[in-house]
């Protein structure tokens, strides 16, 4: 577990070392729909701009009342934590990340920057063509910026590396379906986060070995099986708290969790169309799931496949995407008698408050859950 957590924590050092080793460029991306394969095909290292809470003295001036991940990103960017990034890209998505992107762009005019439009109506008749043309523009801009021609062979190689990564992550997800999974939710989340900030080819080797280790591991015992929904988070404090209380998050439906790797690129002659279809066909977040056509059903299928006892919906305060789908998601969960608990959190999760509500929720799922007094002592079921 520590290995992947450290990879996430040391992501800035990793990217700097990668640059020194390869002489390549690093591009930071804000939104989960960013087509990393194109950047990778151009020889650039795409890294997710992950927020990390630090005492914030400057972001309020720029992005007042944004969600905390977005304002934390601004804070980090202005403090120079991302000074190794040579370019930034945002994909049409949430307004707060767009604000963070704009601040990063305007305060660093020398950076390569690109805004990629991705239709909100993802399953409209012309959406795939619109996105394909946007990808074509992005390919041209990347070629101009890097001076490297992106050939079909480059794209094939990149798609292969990314698909391999997705397949490996799906293998890890499958291990979480076991009655007694061998890994915890926090560990799984750190694995996915690490994948977003590292060279995928290098990461794939690490994942291969990790899966071998997992197959030898002993299960963590009988625990309440939970699913995590809601806004993106860039730490695993909630997962860790859940584990401390005697449960385990066996599946999530977060943009930077399973949704990041759930579907692959199905190759076709027109590589950009293949990419367009992949990103339009991935599990959507609320802003891209027009008319709630897919997301509630996808959530329900995950609850079934992973045999969850209950669902935690943790929304970031000021997140304007999540919460708008309460009607559809709550409805589908209630119709199927799947217990859930909804609450709002921010970047610094209040331990006491969250613990109180989670203990109550777990007690609701498995009555008789009590804890010996003394806060270091684990829950007994």
């Amino acid at each position, binding site marked *: 577990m520590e290995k992947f957590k450290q990879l996430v924590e040391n992501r800035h050092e990793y990217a700097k070392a990668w640059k020194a080793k390869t002489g390549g460029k690093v591009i930071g991306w804000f939104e989960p729909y960013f087509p990393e394969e194109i950047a990778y095909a151009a020889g650039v290292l795409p890294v997710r701009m992950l927020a990390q809470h630090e005492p914030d003295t400057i972001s309020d001036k720029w992005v007042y009342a944004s969600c905390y991940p977005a304002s934390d990103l601004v804070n980090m960017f202005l403090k120079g934590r991302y000074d190794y990034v040579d370019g930034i890209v945002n994909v049409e998505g949430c307004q707060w990340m767009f604000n963070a992107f704009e601040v990063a762009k305007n305060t660093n005019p020398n950076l390569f920057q690109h805004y990629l439009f991705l239709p909100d109506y993802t399953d409209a008749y012309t959406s795939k063509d619109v996105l394909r043309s946007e990808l074509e523009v992005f390919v041209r801009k990347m070629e101009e910026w890097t001076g490297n021609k992106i050939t079909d062979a480059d794209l094939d190689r990149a798609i292969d590396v990314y698909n391999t990564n997705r397949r490996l992550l799906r293998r890890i997800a499958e291990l979480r379906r076991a009655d007694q999974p061998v890994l915890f939710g926090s560990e799984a989340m750190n694995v996915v986060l690490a994948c977003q900030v590292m060279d995928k080819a290098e990461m794939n080797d690490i994942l291969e070995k990790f899966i071998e280790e997992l197959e030898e591991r002993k299960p963590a015992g009988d625990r309440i099986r939970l699913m995590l929904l809601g806004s993106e988070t860039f730490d695993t404090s909630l997962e860790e708290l859940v584990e401390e209380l005697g449960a385990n998050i066996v599946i999530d439906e977060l943009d930077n969790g399973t949704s990041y790797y759930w579907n692959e690129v199905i190759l076709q002659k027109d590589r950009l169309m293949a990419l367009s279809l992949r990103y339009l066909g991935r599990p959507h977040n609320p802003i891209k799931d027009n008319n709630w056509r897919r997301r509630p059903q996808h959530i329900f299928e995950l609850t079934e496949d992973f045999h969850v006892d209950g669902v935690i919906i943790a929304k970031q*305060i000021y997140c304007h995407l999540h919460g708008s789908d309460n009607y559809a998601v709550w*409805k589908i969960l*209630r119709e199927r008698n799947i*217990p859930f*608990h*909804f*609450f*709002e959190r*921010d970047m610094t999760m*209040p331990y*006491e*408050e969250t613990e*109180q*509500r989670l*203990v*109550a*929720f777990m*007690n*609701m799922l498995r*009555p008789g859950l*009590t*804890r*010996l*007094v*003394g*806060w270091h002592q684990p829950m007994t079921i």
Partner: protein
Amino acid sequence: MGQTYWKWPESCWLSKEIDWKKAEKVTAGVDVGTTSAQAAILCDGELFGYANIRIGAYFKKAADLVITQAMGDSGMTLKDIGAIVCTGWGHRNADYAAKFIDEVHCHAKGARFIYGPEVRTVVNLGGQTCSAIRLFDWDRVRDFMMNDKCATGFGRNVEMMCDYLKVPVEEIGKLSLDVNVDPEPVSTTCYAFADTETLGLFRQDFRAEPLSENEVYASHLFAIAWRALGVIGKLQPLDVGDVTVFKELGFTGGLAKNPGVTERIERELKVSALKSEYDPMLAGAIGAALLA
């Protein structure tokens, strides 16, 4: 020192009919909340003694004091109590308790004791939190919702406002109902905004028809009821369909004794809450003792 309007009366009681030494099972529940602490002692499932005190700044002291007061002069000591369960936000201060059970389950269980087995929806209006609990017909929690950080400011906020406005905390609720029409509630975003806005209502001499004092109280308490309604509204609907129906509602917590809040909630939900002779503040402690 002048009158402190926020100080609600503390209480303790000891049964004269029950001989605890003859009881087969003696259990206790201690609910250390954010503004008050309660302890309840049960002998074979019957209430033997209780105490209800204000906390102030000393949680540990309050947690020790409340159980001592509940035992009173009965001769009982902590060793005589078979099991002690603590609950509430300050439960860690009751280090003499054997185990902790969450406040949702304690209030649900306590509400069934106080209001009878028919209670289906429990609304805990606490010092700084509000939770709404939906129960199955049997003794299981079906769903619950708790307020988030920005919606705090329930009981403690009323206490503070009573000091600002110089009106006794036991009277503000009744006074707030003595209005022809409820004015618009003050800000429901957070209690700090609400307080500023409420105090601002007294300064509005420029208004053609300034609000009376009672109308200002009504405006403030309506905002609290509104916030509680937001929490209640998220609960799982009782009946099939999208319409949430509230039946057999029971209030617990300190604000349950404030009709300015409870009657406004009842009016909006179109229900009459269940009544009981027990102090609704004791629900958490009684529930904890029952679950011990």
